[in-house]
């Protein structure tokens, strides 16, 4: 049967430059490039290319171009090439469309429609090179402010202490390589923030970084044991994730190799399936029970975070979570990434984190409990400006997952679910995983945090502040550009010029 699926990319090779070294051949795990056995020349099978740009970067002579396949269907506003391709793919295969990474449709990125303020004349901006800029942030439950002496029981309120309000989001070993864990864990350690194990357990080789680890407990309960809970600085219960609200996780058996199986405590080669719900959480009371059993198990020495996907009534859910005992609320917007997710769910379920954050922060304030819990957001945080805006909207800190992987080399080919990540990130194949040297990975992740630290300091100084907490929830520092009145109202910000 003729396959209707089209190539997405075309490979351009400049034969004047190509020296036939074969680097592209050995680097493309998708077997796009191959050496013609008849004349030893290097050729390409374009249809297999996912556009990861690995060969382009590694080709020593700059002979390669990987560009979008130019041939398109006739222009149509509704039936775009993408839409047609998707249907062809499904009619070729009969399967659910899978994808990696987050929401891919070019919907409005609200971060880009929000602008930050700066001081002029009436108050001075502060020079971050000359004055200390304080980014230290504490996450965890704070005492209710009705009595002064509630401050005197610090042991009841364990805190995470961050030197930059940016943490590495949950990405399990198995969905990403151990080298990714090593890179992020070490960077979190040196930059004094936290990394998250994801639901795949804690590998012995990254145990050294447990003081800065947030250990995740998800519906599959992979790798969870009393020691595991004891090892993290914080425990995160994952209810949902932005890339796939309402559905569970699926790590295909091919990715469950020996090491992954051992860390997850499951048989090698078996599919690691996280059910859609936690089968012991069918209600808020059940969540509360799980929170408190985890707290009991760790003698109330660690904060417990609960992560959900941003969905329509996120504000009410978060308020319930706070009351159920969650110390840190994590909201993952619909742009949040994933190793493998049904494309339809990724693109069409959930809401942008900007609105979820604004709604939750407002709701918690209306209920007078905002100060008692910490709020962490994730899902499409791309740069320090997004971080600053998220904090001004009301977040205490953010998680970055995709941005961290991009720092390690990810080129957003969105084929994480195939296990053939050419950049050695979303794979446990030893041939590919070795491509990420954790020494380099650590440096790159550290560099990213360092750079953002400087930029956050610049933003703060420009706004006449020298401490990040003065920006938190400071929506007066934000203005909306090209937003409707209703959007502005929900975000709780004024329009530019107001």
């Amino acid at each position: 049967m003729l396959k209707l699926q089209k190539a997405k990319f075309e490979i351009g090779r400049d034969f004047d430059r190509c020296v036939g070294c074969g680097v592209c051949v050995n680097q493309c795990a998708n077997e796009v490039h191959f050496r013609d056995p008849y004349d030893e020349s290097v050729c390409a099978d374009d249809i297999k290319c996912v556009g990861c740009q690995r060969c382009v970067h590694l080709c020593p002579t700059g002979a390669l171009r990987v560009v979008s396949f130019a041939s398109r269907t006739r222009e149509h506003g509704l039936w775009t090439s993408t839409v047609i391709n998707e249907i062809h793919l499904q009619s070729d295969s009969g399967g659910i469309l899978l994808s990696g990474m987050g929401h891919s449709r070019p919907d409005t990125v609200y971060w880009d429609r929000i602008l930050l303020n700066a001081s002029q004349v009436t108050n001075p901006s502060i020079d971050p090179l000359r004055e200390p800029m304080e980014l230290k942030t504490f996450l965890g439950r704070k005492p209710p402010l009705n009595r002064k002496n509630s401050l005197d029981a610090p042991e009841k309120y364990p805190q995470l202490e961050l030197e930059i309000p940016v943490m590495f989001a949950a990405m399990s070993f198995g969905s990403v390589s151990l080298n990714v864990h090593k890179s992020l864990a070490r960077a979190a350690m040196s930059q004094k923030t936290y990394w998250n194990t994801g639901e795949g357990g804690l590998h012995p080789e990254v145990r050294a970084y447990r003081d800065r680890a947030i250990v995740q407990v998800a519906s599959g309960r992979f790798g969870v044991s009393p020691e595991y809970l004891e090892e993290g600085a914080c425990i995160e219960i994952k209810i949902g994730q932005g890339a796939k609200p309402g559905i569970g996780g699926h790590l295909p058996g091919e990715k469950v190799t020996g090491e992954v199986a051992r860390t997850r405590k499951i048989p090698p080669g078996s599919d690691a399936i996280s059910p859609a719900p936690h089968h012991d959480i069918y209600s808020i009371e059940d969540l509360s029970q799980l929170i408190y059993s985890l707290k009991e198990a760790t003698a109330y020495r660690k904060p417990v975070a609960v992560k959900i996907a941003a969905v329509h009534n996120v504000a009410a859910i978060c308020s319930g979570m706070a009351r159920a005992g969650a110390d840190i609320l994590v909201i993952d917007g619909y742009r949040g990434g994933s190793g493998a997710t049904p494309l339809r769910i990724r693109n069409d379920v959930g809401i942008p984190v900007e609105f979820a954050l604004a709604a939750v922060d407002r709701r918690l304030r209306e209920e007078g409990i905002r100060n008692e819990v910490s709020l962490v957001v994730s899902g499409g945080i791309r740069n320090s400006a997004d971080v600053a805006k998220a904090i001004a909207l009301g977040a205490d800190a953010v998680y970055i997952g995709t941005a961290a992987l991009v720092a390690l080399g990810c080129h957003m080919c969105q084929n994480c679910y195939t296990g053939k990540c050419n950049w050695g990130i979303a794979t446990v194949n030893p041939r590919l995983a070795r491509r990420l040297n954790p020494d380099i990975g650590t440096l790159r992740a550290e560099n990213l945090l360092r750079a953002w630290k400087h930029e956050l300091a610049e933003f703060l100084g420009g706004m006449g502040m020298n401490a990040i907490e003065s920006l938190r929830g400071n929506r007066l520092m934000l203005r909306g550009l090209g937003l409707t009145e209703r959007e502005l109202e929900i975000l709780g910000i004024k329009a530019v010029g107001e």
Partner: protein
Amino acid sequence: MTAVVRRVEAQDEYCMGCGLCRLACQVAHSAYPLSIVKAMKTGSRPVPRMSVESSADGMSFRSVRCLQCEDPECVKICISGAATRDEETGVVLIDEQKCVGCWSCVIACPEGAIIGPGTGRGKAYKCDLCLEREFPACVAACPNRALILREVEVVESTTREG
């Protein structure tokens, strides 16, 4: 007596078998060390002084080059006096003029670091540590820091002759 000499250390764990080190070596030892394209496309192909090996399952790789042994088997076995060890730098060299292509050193090298058969040149070639460069070409080319330049201290044996 001790001397500080440079060595290339391979971290096989992070070798991804791309072969860029090998290509760089080839270019560095060609007539056009500044241009990969010219080096590779003008005249006969230059010979690399090292190689990249892959495990049988294709899952792991090794970048192989001369270890610059203190008591080199290749020097001991060389029948023409082409292989020598420079006492000052600790580098083992093969003089192309003197080499007669008997492949004794190729067989004797425990590391399998000597290149010869299959190049069509009838001479043995090996890593010279790119002493004239700031960084060995292979080290500079490795995209994954699987090759590291080290300055090591070696104890010069007094019993050995120069």
